[in-house]
């Protein structure tokens, strides 16, 4: 079967089939979402991104080679080369326990904190959540992570707290985040507010919403301006 949008060309010189995309096919783009996939791929390249994503989104854990290869989904050789380069540069640490070699994010690396934030935003939790919510993005005004992850004090057992304001149900959000929860290996706790309820609760001085809006937020959909527009008031930071 040939997928629609593609034509097959057979040439005499090359016995293999070449797939040539048809010109003029419309590729939908998510204009409201920054393409974090492209961003991180351009910054790091496939293997480095995969290794950093695993190690820097679980900084308290050490992983052995086989786990990293499985998570990265690339060849063993490529992962080994990457691990050597990253260990030599002090970005990750290589540890030997018994007969096993483990790798872990290196807290003594001068850009450890910065890398952690970058990974959360561009490759790790943030990117996974953004991808999971993308199919509902036209009905979501604002979605952001708050709590310990947004404060970047990520711990091994941190849950991911997400606030969503939009015309979506809790059920829809839970089912769209189910896969992301497995991918990132953390519990995701969403709270979903329709825009009108969000606005009225905020105006009535709702404690939870007011305190969340004073904390650091990691935006997945929308931004601070959109949030202020929804709240009909400027926010503290």
């Amino acid at each position, binding site marked *: 079967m040939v997928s629609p949008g593609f034509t097959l060309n057979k040439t005499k010189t090359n016995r293999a089939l070449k797939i040539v995309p048809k010109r003029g096919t419309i590729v939908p783009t998510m204009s409201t979402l920054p393409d974090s996939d492209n961003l991180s791929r351009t910054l790091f390249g496939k293997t480095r991104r995969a290794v950093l994503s695993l190690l820097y989104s679980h900084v308290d854990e050490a992983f052995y080679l086989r786990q990293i290869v499985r998570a990265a989904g690339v060849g063993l050789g490529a992962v080994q080369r990457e691990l050597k380069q990253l260990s030599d540069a002090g970005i990750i640490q290589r540890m030997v326990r018994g007969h096993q070699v483990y790798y872990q994010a290196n807290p003594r690396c001068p850009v450890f904190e910065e890398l952690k934030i970058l990974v959360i935003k561009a490759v790790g939790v943030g990117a996974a959540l953004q991808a999971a919510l993308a199919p509902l993005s036209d009905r979501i005004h604002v979605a952001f992570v708050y709590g310990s992850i947004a404060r970047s004090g990520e711990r091994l057992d941190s849950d991911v*707290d997400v606030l969503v304001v939009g015309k979506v149900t*809790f*059920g829809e959000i839970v089912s769209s985040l189910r896969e992301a929860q497995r991918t990132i290996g953390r519990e995701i*706790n969403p*709270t979903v507010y*329709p825009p009108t309820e969000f606005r009225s609760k905020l105006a009535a001085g709702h*404690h939870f919403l007011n305190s969340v809006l004073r904390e650091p937020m990691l935006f997945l959909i929308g931004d601070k301006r959109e949030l202020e527009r929804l709240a009909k008031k400027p926010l503290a930071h």
Partner: protein
Amino acid sequence: MSLKDWLKNRWLIEHQTSRQEIADLLSVADRDLAQCQTPHLSPDWQLNIAYNAALQAATAALAAAGYRAAKEAHHYQVIQSLAYTIRADEGLIAQLDKFRKKRNIGSYERAGAISEQEVKEMVRLAKDLMGKVTVWLKKNHPELL
């Protein structure tokens, strides 16, 4: 996996139920379904009551199947057992389990992290589950009704 495997893992305990027990569980579920809609209750409390209705319905199904959940992670096991008792779909179980989590958060960590819309969804879910459990009981354990 099956409920028998769960028994081996000590997540469940064998349990002999009765018509009286099933009737009691279903009547608590009915009562809570009605009371969660009492006006002027806070969303946290309404969610708690509606969640309890769903939990009682799930407990009734598990009891009819011959089990009760062990003490540890009790609510979690009762919710997950719906996959084997009434064959609930993954979506319903995931949603109910998130409400369980939300209920914990609402009580201990982040008071107020529950919207009115979420309460309505929890009530709808509890009603839906109650209906499904009743249909399942009629079909599979008519002697208990």
